[in-house]
């Protein structure tokens, strides 16, 4: 087993490189992704090695990045679209919802919308407005799309490749605050299927479920809880749409209690969907209602106060306390 340590940014870069090497129909398109290597350097060096026809520096127009990727998909290309920041994906929303999500259906299966839309999402980098949002629920709510999030370098390396090979359109959410954190990458064997949830830490008392940047926060909370005598089982959802519910159900049937963590506000969110599904599927195992630890229902705040907005260890542990203390 060949493993190597690298950052998530490098793992994405290596994953993209491998996809470009494997399939000549794979293209990358986005703003500033060529010479600059992208504002986060995810595509660093790829244009130099694969040429301007395959790693395409685009004009600054998100609807066109996605809209032309649709035409390329009809022509048989697999384009990875880079959206520079979460808050800039909305000009492309029309193309994503009206064409990307629906053309396979509208063509009775003749067109395959094999394209990936990479979005650096969530906060935690002290940015200015529109650079820290969590738009995943908009896409998860649209039939025809699939949404995933990576949370470790190993996942980043494999999930980007699995997404590119997938025949449905994938909204690929990258936790930008974790780009520079290192981890082991096994370059021979993928950790799991693209949408599979993974139990990251086993525990007995409360199941804590989240994705993206929340994973690290959940694992910290689990360490702290352990010192207080509470055992948390931490699940990384990975697949956001569809959700891989089976490991979550299995875990909650064991613990009887669960908390969902996300940076998006809870209204009509992924967390709400998980609570609804687990309440239905684990009803007789539940010893407390499932709780959501989310961002607040406000526009993403100025980042000097973002740590009070994002779910942190204290807020997760507070929710854990509440489900532990619940008496039915």
């Amino acid at each position, binding site marked *: 087993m060949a493993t190597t340590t690298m950052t998530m940014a490098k793992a994405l870069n290596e994953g993209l490189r491998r996809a470009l090497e494997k399939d000549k129909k794979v293209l990358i398109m986005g703003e500033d992704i060529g010479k600059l290597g992208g504002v986060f350097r995810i595509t660093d060096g790829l244009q130099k090695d694969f040429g301007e026809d395959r790693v395409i520096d685009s*004009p600054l127009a998100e609807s066109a990045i996605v*809209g032309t990727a649709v*035409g390329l998909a009809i022509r048989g290309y697999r384009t990875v679209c880079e959206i520079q920041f979460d808050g800039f994906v909305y000009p492309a929303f029309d193309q994503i919802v009206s064409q990307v999500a629906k053309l396979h259906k509208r063509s009775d299966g003749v067109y395959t919308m*094999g394209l990936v839309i990479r979005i650096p999402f969530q906060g935690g980098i002290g940015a200015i407005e529109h650079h820290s949002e969590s738009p995943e629920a908009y896409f998860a709510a649209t039939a025809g799309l699939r949404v995933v999030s990576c949370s470790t370098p190993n996942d980043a390396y494999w999930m980007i490749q699995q997404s590119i090979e997938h025949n449905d359109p994938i909204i690929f959410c990258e936790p930008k605050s974790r780009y520079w954190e290192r981890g082991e990458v096994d370059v021979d064997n993928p950790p799991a299927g693209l949408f599979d949830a993974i139990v990251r830490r086993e525990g007995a008392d409360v199941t804590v479920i989240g994705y993206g940047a929340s994973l690290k926060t959940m694992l910290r909370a689990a360490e702290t809880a352990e010192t207080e005598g509470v055992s948390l089982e931490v699940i990384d959802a990975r697949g956001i749409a569809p959700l891989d519910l089976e490991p979550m159900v299995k875990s909650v049937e064991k613990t009887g209690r669960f908390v969902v963590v996300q940076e998006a506000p809870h209204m009509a969110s992924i967390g709400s969907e998980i609570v609804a599904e687990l309440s239905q599927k684990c009803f007789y195992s539940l010893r407390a209602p499932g709780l959501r630890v989310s961002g607040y229902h406000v526009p993403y705040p100025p980042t000097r106060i973002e740590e009070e907005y994002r779910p942190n260890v204290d807020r997760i542990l507070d929710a854990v306390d509440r489900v532990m203390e619940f008496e039915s």
Partner: protein
Amino acid sequence: MIGDELIQLVTPEGERVSSPDYESTLSGEAIFGMYRDMVIIRRLDVESTSLQRQGQLALWAPVHGQEAAQIGAGRALAPMDFTFPTYREHGIGWCRGVPPREMLRLFRAVSNGGWDPQKYRHSVPTIVLGNQVLNAVGYAMGIQRDGAEEAVMTFFGDGASSQGDVLEAFVWASSFNTPVVFFCQNNQWGISTPTSIQSKIPLYHRAHGFGFPGVRVDGNDVLAVYEVTRRALEQARVGGGPTLIEAYTYRLGAHTTSDDPTRYRIDAEVEVWKHRDPIERVKALLAREYHVKIGKFDEVAAEADALALQLRDDVLAMDRPDPITMFDHAYAEPHPLIEEGRREMIELGVSGGAH
């Protein structure tokens, strides 16, 4: 209203006029073929409107008045070219070989598309204004990467000309010099919105600002539309880049069968355009210059009637799909919510679940 820039090869009276840049290359036989196309399209359009009025279609988007624009453009395409239509390109669909019954599946509300877009090299209908124009440019980028000598033509109207997607497509096509022809049918009205509040300049002038040529052609002159489009496609195929063609025409009918144009435009305007009818001028030309006899025109009318009756039969035979087919092709690969929906529908007994 129509400036000197308008390219015209046949007047509304059916007389040839010379153009400094274009001349007709069509034989009498080819012109007669386009006359036939236009008559058939108009007849099918009338039949479809009737079918809607009789409750057999959910909606119909008439093409009445725009036959020359579509047939001239459609006949200029080479077999391997690819087209991206709106929901009104019935004439283009006809030229691409899409059976009329398949074009009506959308309007019968039994499909969101209707035909195999790869088979006919004619994409499925796009209803959201302007989306397809960007998709066409992307397809053209694929042609470039394949090194193929093919072109893409995409259609939109004066109504969509204000959409960001159309203008972004112009930028992309120009910057990447893609083999795409933007075919804008300026039919003067976007439902009730006149072209005058869509653009302060002639639409084809916009192309120059984006860095590629724009040309305005008499959209009711099938010979002129054919030549202008043919040249634009030829240039695109050999690396000459994009062209914007503004086919200056008129929507003689309503926007759709749900529209009532008497609320927003005056009869006198419609009358003016009726005198510029695209079919009558070709008929006059054929009679005068090629001595086509009345009997030949009657044969075409009879053929069109027969096709219309066939279309009516085909539409009436289109049954409601099995509800379970809604789950087909929502995704290309297995999806738990699709399986869940299918299972529920079968349990509810509303479908045999044969699909």
